Each structure stands twice: as structure tokens, then as C-alpha cells.
């Protein structure tokens, strides 16, 4: 649906983004993860027309597009990092205002706003001033405000930042529902676990440069396979060679710990344990996470 080609942005000679190229397909939930200062918010600001790129361009459905153009703005929605609404307006008034500014018909807007309030779980609080809402409710209102005009693509800039676990969980549920309804979602986040769960594709941005892009599984795969860590009562090197050869695994020793790596490790665990019968003092199975992958890329960037 939207493609970014070789996008760069400099602020006073400092590169905030350097040749970023990526795309978000229709109905896809795309996650952009990266440390603070990686350039995630700069990218969102460019994509929402707040600032112009130094180089590169944006394609919408394969055609170059200016983010300030009405045809683009009406197809995208934004949920900023900090909840954005008028605190002294009620939830409904905030939504009505945006509906007016998006030129939504006065006849259509009440129904749309009521359903949005219900979708965000705010129907009982519709007539309360938003400043009295909890942080979670405020972020849900902010999300609903980004959806007033039914955009095809929604930019979410670290939407769960600063929320407690319950509020964060509720918001992720809403985002999942949104993805399930067929909207395209471009989301920046620090939360690796939830990005892994929600996003169909991910990219890692470090220092303004895109490091990796792919499905969560692909990215985790880049780090290597899952692994089993063993402590043995005696040296069983010969048995380890035989077992690993038979199961298509590999092993190495790190101090007193034996590390076995390879694919489909969970299914092969019973054979490994029976092959080393009587010698296993303890065993620890460890699955590779997105956070492992992210930290590895960070270390690589740092080193």
C-alpha cells in the first residue's frame, strides 16, 4: 500500500534517517522497532507531512505522493505518542470536532462517533471531559480520534508508552481488532513481546538505518536457533557427538555448560535426554526472542 524509498533526513548536518526503504502492504501490521533516537518518530513525522525528507520519497499504491496532499491525508490516520485531544472537551466533542474537520457529513457522523466510542470502550464516558480520564482511557480516545475518518493506513507512534500493564493490554487488544478488521497498521514500539505477537512484519531501525526487515520468525532466525543448556555429571563427549550427528544438531562447550543448538529442538529433547541417561544434572531449554534479536543488533551497532 505504502512504500518508502531511500528516505533520508538531516537536522543541521546530523543524519536522523539514512536511506530507509520499506513497504507496508494492504491489511498488514508493520512494526518498526528501535532504541530511543533511532529515527522512528522522525519517520512518522515525514510520513504524516509534518516535516519534509532531505532525500527520498513516498509511494502510495505505487505512485509518488506528497504527504500534504488531501488524497493521502484522508487515507492515513495518526495516533501520536502522547495522547492528543482537548482536555476540556468531552470525548464525544473531541470526536465530533475531528469529524467536522474531516468534512464528515453531519448525518453520518453521530452514528460513526457512537460506534467509535463503543469500540474504544468509552461509551459510558462520552460526555465527560477528557482531562478526567485515566491515562489508558485517554490513549484509547486518542486512538479513536485517529480513526474518525476511517483511514486505510494508521500510524501508531509508540501507542502503549507510559501505560500500566492492564491499559497496555487493552490497547493492544484494540490494535489487534483493528488489524483483524483489515486496516493497514504502521506501528513503532519498544515492546518486543507485543510486537512479536501483533505484527506480521517487522523492521529494526538503529541510528537512522534499517538493519533488518522480515517476519518476527525470520528476524529471530537471524540470531540463530533455539538452544538447550546442559550440566553433566561426567564427560559424555562421544555420546554428544553421536546424538547430535543422528538428530542433525550441533553442540559446543562453554565452561562447564554444554550448549546444543539446532532446529525443532523441543521435539528432539526426549531423545537427547535418553541418550545421556544418568549423566544430566540439570537442563535448560531457551527459546530465541525478538528481544534477543534486537539486543544483538544493538550490540552489533554499538561494536
Amino acid at each position: 500500500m505504502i512504500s518508502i524509498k531511500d528516505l533520508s533526513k538531516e537536522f543541521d548536518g546530523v543524519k536522523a534517517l539514512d536511506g530507509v526503504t520499506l513497504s507496508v502492504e494492504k491489511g498488514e501490521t508493520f512494526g518498526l522497532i528501535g532504541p530511543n533516537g533511532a529515527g522512528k518518530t522522525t519517520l512518522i513525522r515525514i510520513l504524516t507531512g509534518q516535516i519534509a525528507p532531505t532525500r527520498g520519497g513516498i509511494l502510495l499504491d505505487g505512485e509518488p505522493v506528497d504527504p500534504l496532499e488531501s488524497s493521502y491525508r484522508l487515507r492515513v490516520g495518526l495516533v501520536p505518542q502522547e495522547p492528543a485531544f482537548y482536555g476540556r472537551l468531552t470525548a464525544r466533542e473531541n470526536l465530533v470536532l475531528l469529524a467536522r474537520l474531516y468534512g464528515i457529513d453531519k448525518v453520518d457522523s453521530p452514528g460513526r462517533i457512537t460506534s467509535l466510542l463503543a469500540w474504544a470502550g468509552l461509551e459510558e464516558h462520552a460526555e465527560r471531559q477528557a482531562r478526567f480520564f485515566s491515562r489508558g482511557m485517554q490513549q484509547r480516545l486518542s486512538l479513536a480520534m485517529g480513526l474518525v475518518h476511517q483511514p486505510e493506513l494508521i500510524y501508531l507512534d509508540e501507542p502503549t508508552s507510559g501505560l500500566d500493564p492492564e491499559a497496555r493490554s487493552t490497547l493492544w487488544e484494540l490494535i489487534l481488532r483493528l488489524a483483524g478488521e483489515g486496516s493497514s497498521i504502521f506501528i513503532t514500539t519498544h515492546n518486543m513481546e507485543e510486537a512479536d505477537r501483533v505484527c506480521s512484519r517487522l523492521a529494526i531501525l538503529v541510528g537512522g538505518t534499517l538493519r533488518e526487515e522480515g517476519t518476527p520468525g525470520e528476524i529471530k532466525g537471524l540470531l540463530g536457533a533455539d538452544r538447550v543448556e546442559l550440566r553433566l555429571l561426567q564427560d559424555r563427549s562421544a555420546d554428544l557427538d553421536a546424538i547430535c550427528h543422528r538428530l542433525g544438531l550441533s553442540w559446543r562447550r562453554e565452561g562447564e555448560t554444554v550448549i546444543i543448538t539446532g532446529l525443532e529442538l523441543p521435539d528432539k529433547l526426549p531423545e537427547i535426554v535418553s541418550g545421556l541417561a544418568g549423566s544430566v544434572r540439570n537442563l535448560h531449554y531457551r527459546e530465541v526472542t525478538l528481544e534477543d534479536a534486537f539486543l544483538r543488533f544493538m550490540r552489533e551497532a554499538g561494536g
Partner: protein
Amino acid sequence: MRGWKALFVKDWRLIIRNRLLLAVLIIYPFLIMGIIGAAFYDVGRPVPIGLVNLDRADAGETAWVGAQAASTAGLERRFRRRAVQVEEYGGEAEAVASLNAGEVSAIMATAVLDEPALWMGADLSRDEISATLLDLKSEAETWSEYATREEAVAALENGEDSVLVAVGEEDYPYIGETIWLEGENYDASSLVLRFGQDVTEIEEYGSESEARDDLKQGRIDAVIVLPRGFVHKLKTLDEIAQVPVVIDQSNLVKAEFAETSIRGFLSRIKEGVVENKTEAVVAGLHILVTGGDFFGTEVVGLEQIRENLETLKRALQDRPDLQETVDVGIELADTVISDIEEAAVYLRGTALPIDLEISSVAGKRLSAKDAVVPSLIALSILWTGVLCGAILMVIEDEEGMRIRLGLTEMGAFALVGSKLLLATAVVFAQSAVMLVLAVAVFGVFTSNAALALLVIAAASFSCIGIGLVIAAFARQVAGAVILSVLVSFPLIFMTGAVFPLSQMPTFMQWIARAIPLTYAIEALSGVMLRGETLADVAWQLGVLIAFGVGLLTLGSLLVRRRSA
């Protein structure tokens, strides 16, 4: 125009639901106008003045005179020479006791450097006392008359005076005389009370120190000390009557009011005296022509002399040579009579050379409250306009809504335009209510209220522009308020709202020309107080609108640049 109405309604709700904004933008200007208006409502009240009358002869009272004299030894020598016998005293108490007991009619004290004062007394006649005082005056570098013994002795002791003379008030020359003015007889006090009654509230004090105490405590605004012989000097006009006046200049406005009032009524007294004198001289000249009582002497008038000469001439019909001599006398009499009549006319003109007939360009005399209202309204426009413009723009940043609004389909100028419209409406409505209140409730004069409303609208527009520029430098409402106050406060003093522009230095006048409020005050004063028409204030209106457009453009550019 898409979105203007929605944004306008939204901003209005944000103002009325925010108590702080409501207070700062809507209520505060009314409060300030009320306070300043109340201060000017009764500005024309009489100025409280303290009067110390030393020109009064009270039996048994002592008149004290002090001087810093060049030669105290010479004064002492001449005092001794006039007296049959001179008493010397051990100190002030002994000398005063002797005077009060009638043993002497005058005492003199002389002090040289740090030596103790020499006190002496003598029984002098009124003429000798008069001569002693004249002698002292001729030697005096400074001359002071005291109402009390304590004040006089203190001046001698602290070195302000080197000579003191004390005599019974009944012996003091020319003290306590009265003057006939405008059909009534006045002594010094009643003269000042009568002529100062329109502009002052006079309270009499027994001594200058008492009056000065009240002046320091703010109970009165000035102290007038009428010197001994004040009325005598007015009557004779052979010597200037010096009237010491003490004013409190810690408050310049109060001091200015007091000095102007005192100068005003003393000038009226002087004019009255001169007029009386002139009339007396004119009457005397008339007596010289017609004959009668000429300042106590019965004189034959020039007309009678001329008639006598005519009779003599007729009697000398057979002596033409003598008739010619008589003719010369008649001719001289005619010339003198004619010259005296011309002199009388000239003197009358001199006595009353100027008579003011004051009228106002507004068509009626204006009061302080009339004059202050245009400036008050202009200040209210500045305050609300700048704050409203700045706050309404900064709210978008504070709520994080500027980005979100930028993605909507609102019109290109909807954001700035709707705020400008709302701020103008608020400022205009507020100023219009102030104007109506001032006119309808407080009876303030305005010659053209409709045109004043037009000026208010233009002034609102330009002041809101200042607020929009300020908004480019603040991200929170609190910051916008602080910046607005920092900018507005100096403008109040640089635009003629407080001090008249014409009284400021040239460079300040140039600075004032770069501030829209200056033109707002000029135009509002013009249409409200000077009866100016639309054509008269077209320049100011044009400048105000130009300022508004310029500042609006600048503010928009600055906000856009900051966003980028």
C-alpha cells in the same frame, strides 16, 4: 472556510471551561478598569492644603525671626546703640522670661561658630524694633520667620541661623493688616481661604512643624506659610511677598496638582490686588481732572482750573497780550486732561490684560474620568488581545493537537482565522461592554460611540497579531501568559496611555510610533473626546489594520518555521 465554525466553537468552549482563562481574559480587564476608573472618578476634588499664618498679631504672643547674617558683630553693635540699656542673659530661658515679663520689648541672640549664643534684650520703641528688623534683613543671607520658640531656637542651635530676634507680635511692624478686595475686607488667612476655596481644602495649623508632620503623613498635599507682613506687602506692592510653600514631591502627580492649585489662587489674589490698586490710581487721576479728595487731600480739578482760565481770559478782553498767555495755560490744561484720560484707559487695560475663555474641542468641558476612558479601553484591548491571541494558539501545542489538525481537511487559514475571529470577538465584545458601561452607568462623555467601536475592532485585530507572534515562542499556556505580560507591560508605558506622548523624548516618540497601541489610543481619544470623524482617524485605522495583517503573517510564518 471549512472548519472555521467548529474550531471557533471549540476554542470558545475551552475558554469558558477554564476558570483561569476566564479570569485572565474576561474578568480581569473589567476588574482593572473598575479600579483605575474609580481612582479617576473623583479626581477634581479640592487639594488638601495646610496653612500656617504668621501674619497675625496675637496679644501676648512672640514673633521670632532668624537670619544667617554676614556680620553678627555689626548687628549686635547697632542693637546696643539703639537701646538706652542692654540686658545680657545667661541663656534663652532667662531672655524669654524677661521679654514675657515686659522688662524688655525685644531680645536678640547671636551665635558665632561653636561658641554659646549671646542673649541680650532691650526696651525698644516700635520704630526702633522696625529699624532693627530692617537692619537684620539688609544683612541677612537667609531670612526665616518662626511660629514657635522651639523652631527658632533649634535653627540657631543647629547653625541654620546666626542671629535670632524675638519681639511681641503687637510690636512687630505691619503685622496683621487687612486688605479690601472685591467688596470685602480680608486678613491673611481669610484672604487665602476665600480665594482658594474652589480648588483647595484648607486647614489652618498653629505652627509649620505641625503642618509638616501632617504633610509627611499624607493628610495634606502642601503647606503654605504666610509670612509676617504678607498683607502689608500686598497692599503697598513695594516689596515682593515671598510665600514659602512645602510640597511632597515623593508623589509627583500630587505635588503637581498642589503646586498648580496654589499658584492658581495666589495669582488670583495678586490680580485682585493689582486691579484694586489700578482702580484707585484711575480714580485718583479722575479726581485730578474733576477735583475732590485726592488720597486725603482736597484738590481743585484741572477742569475747574481751565474754567477759571477761560473766565480770566474773558476778563482780559482789552489785553490781547495777556490773553495769549492765558491761552497757553488753557491749552496746557486741555493737554493734561486728555493725557490723564488716556493714562486712565491704559491703566485699566494693564490691570486686566488677559481674560481666558476656555472651551473644549469636544464641545463641553471634560472631566478626568472622560479623559481616562479611551486609554483604559486601549489597555484592555492590549491585555486581552495579546493574551487571547497567544493562548489560543499555544493551546494547540499544549494539547498536542496541532499535528492531528494538520492531517484534517480544514481550510488553509481555518486554524489561525478561527482564533483571530474568536479573539477579536472576545476583545471587541469586552471593550464594547466597557464603553457602554462607562457611558451609560458612569456618565462618561463620548462624541462618537459608533466610530469608537470601529476603532476598537481595528485595535483588537492588531493586538491579537502581537499575541500570535508571541505564540511562536511558547509551547505552553503558562509560558504564553508570562511572555504576553513581559511584552505588554512596557508597551503600556511607551504608548501615551500613562504619560503624554508629547512629553516624552524624541527617541521614545519614535519607538511609540512602532507600537499599534499608540494609534489605538490616538484614534480612540480622537473619536471619543475630540469629535473626530472617520476621515480624521482613517490614517490610524489603516495603520492598525496594517499592523494586524503584518503581525498575523509574521506569527503564522514563525509558527510554521518552528513546527518544521
